[in-house]
């Protein structure tokens, strides 16, 4: 490297003495100083570059390109032929009953899978936070569903929720209830699907809450106890505010997950019916609609439109959540700064 370029003329005894063990001890001092500066300045960027390069190539660029495709008619078999149709895809989607049905299903499924999940995770984290025997076992057990793939979890729950021989109906039968048709009844199907989501993610969220709870300074509990707060009041006035930013973080992540719901309803619908989300689209989500448009109806432009609308919907929901949080924190007086 040093030989290929002219040596800097002013290097010499005036420069710093070479450091012991320098990797390029042969180069003149000034040149080495330059290399050193280059290294100190440039290396950080080089180290973070792989992340940004891959993200730009496989996430950011496709996301932007999605909006461009959504303005075209593109068929799966001839993907290089793009016919400009302006906003036709959006208009068609707006007038499509299935789209509004999917929006509704995505929202209801999102709510009934996220809200109980996070509340249960909060309770579970509180329990795990006790000093006790076997805490490692309980933590690992709570996390085990997270190790189960959507595929396997959905298959097992589909069977547990089976109309004729499923275990859930058997247990309902013990209490004198009739068998529920979890597949064809809209709300029963949505409850079954959200059960899969709740089962897989509650333990994971509980561990995030637990980690945050352990960082809440003990003095705050002692102060609350001196003020005569009961344990439940301590939970509400010390624990929950103390882990506030973690709660916000999990709400945001679960919301993102909920808008993308795909595998659970697909597999719950058992193959052929899965893409349409049941015989009457009773649990078709936007994710399933995207797939149906693109890979069943071969309309990639329409699929891109659905994807872009999903993104807008997600942004909208997050903004609304943020406004609610802001309003809530204004009402409850000055609080510590909230991240995100």
């Amino acid at each position, binding site marked *: 490297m040093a030989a290929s370029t002219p040596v800097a003329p002013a290097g010499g005894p005036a420069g710093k003495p070479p450091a012991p063990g320098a990797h390029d001890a042969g180069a003149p001092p000034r040149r080495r100083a330059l290399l050193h500066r280059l290294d100190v300045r440039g290396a950080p960027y*080089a180290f*973070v570059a792989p992340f940004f390069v891959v993200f730009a190539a496989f996430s950011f660029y*496709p996301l932007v390109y999605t909006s461009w495709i959504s303005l075209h008619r593109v068929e799966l078999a001839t*993907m290089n032929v793009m016919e400009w149709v302006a906003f036709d895809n959006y208009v068609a989607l707006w007038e499509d009953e299935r789209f509004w049905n999917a929006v509704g299903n995505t929202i209801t499924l999102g709510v009934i899978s996220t809200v109980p999940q996070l509340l249960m995770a909060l309770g579970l984290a509180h329990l795990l936070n006790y000093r006790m025997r076997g805490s490692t076992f309980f933590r690992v057990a709570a996390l085990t569903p997270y190790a189960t*793939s959507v*595929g396997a979890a959905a298959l*097992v729950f589909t069977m547990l929720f089976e109309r004729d021989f499923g275990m859930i109906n058997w247990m309902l039968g013990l209490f004198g209830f009739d068998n529920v048709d979890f597949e064809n009844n809209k709300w029963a199907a949505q409850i079954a699907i959200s059960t899969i989501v709740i089962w897989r993610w509650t333990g994971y969220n509980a561990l995030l809450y637990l*980690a945050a709870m352990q960082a*809440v300074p003990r003095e705050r509990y002692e102060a609350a106890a001196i003020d005569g707060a009961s344990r439940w009041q301590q939970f509400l006035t010390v624990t929950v505010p103390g882990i506030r930013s973690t709660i916000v973080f999990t709400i945001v992540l679960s919301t993102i997950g909920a808008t993308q719901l795909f595998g659970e309803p697909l597999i719950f619908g*058992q193959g052929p019916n899965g893409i349409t989300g049941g015989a009457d689209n009773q649990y078709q989500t936007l994710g399933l609609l995207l797939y149906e448009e693109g890979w069943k109806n071969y309309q990639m432009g329409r699929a891109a439109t659905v994807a872009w609308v999903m993104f807008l919907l997600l942004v909208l929901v997050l903004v609304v959540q943020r406004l609610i949080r802001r309003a809530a924190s204004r009402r409850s007086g000055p609080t510590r700064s909230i991240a995100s």
Partner: protein
Amino acid sequence: MTTDSLPVRAEHGPGAVQESPGRARRRPMMRMRAGRQHHAGPLAYVLLALAALTSLFPLYWTMVAASTDNTRVTQTPPPLLPGPNLFENLARAWDEAAMGKAMINSLIVAGCIALATVLFATLAGFAFAKLRFKARNVLLMLVIGTMMVPPQLSVVPLFMMMSDLGWGQKLPAVIFPTLVSAVGVFFMRQYLTEALPDELVEAGRVDGAHSLRIFWSIVLPIARPAMSVLFMITFVHAWNDFFWPFIALDMSNPTVPVALTQLSAGYIRDQSLIMAGALLGTLPLLAMFVVFGRQIVGGIMQGAVKG
């Protein structure tokens, strides 16, 4: 307790605690004594036992169903104890449902993704934790911001891109888009901020080592425990990833979750075969949890947002 799988925290020198942007406020010493105020009462044990039962029962039942035959599984009341056909069903799932090929594919995909994620996350995490550069805070916020972009939204152009590259239905199509992870970068940064003393990096500089050399001989040995936890967590995610592999791959060359959809789509539904496939696809991760569960739990809590 949860961090004891990770090495002893290095002492912080003066100025070692850096002002971190966003929500990453750390109170390392506090965590040891804060929080756990009460002993668990009987009710807490009962509730926790119920939670553990709920978590584990579906997996247990997968095993029960996979070890009987179709007629017994579909009886009422359903069987609760394992039957004699476990290995026969597993072997059938391995052959008939192409689970063998799927498992090898998943091993390759999850292995590559986990290795690359760990390497790139450690590099970036080190830079964000210990190196000074102008755009550091902006870029870190950008990394955190990328968590808000769900990868599912990019599938249409990604699908076109992969077929242009000639990777349609091939494993690189599912490996490349997932080579990096924002959560991983954040996780390694958190860890190295605490575990890597500034003095060591400074000492390396004084000795004239260049940045890559410092990374190789100083950062890597210290980061190793966190790297192995990140490897396992990423492996779990990559093994279970569904939406994009389902689109990018087909049944001739599936990963495990993709192959599992095929199992449920058959016209003749052999329930114990389906459950055997589900069990087979979950076993590697379950084994990992049995051996390293404590470390994975510790890792997830370590990477959590605090405060």
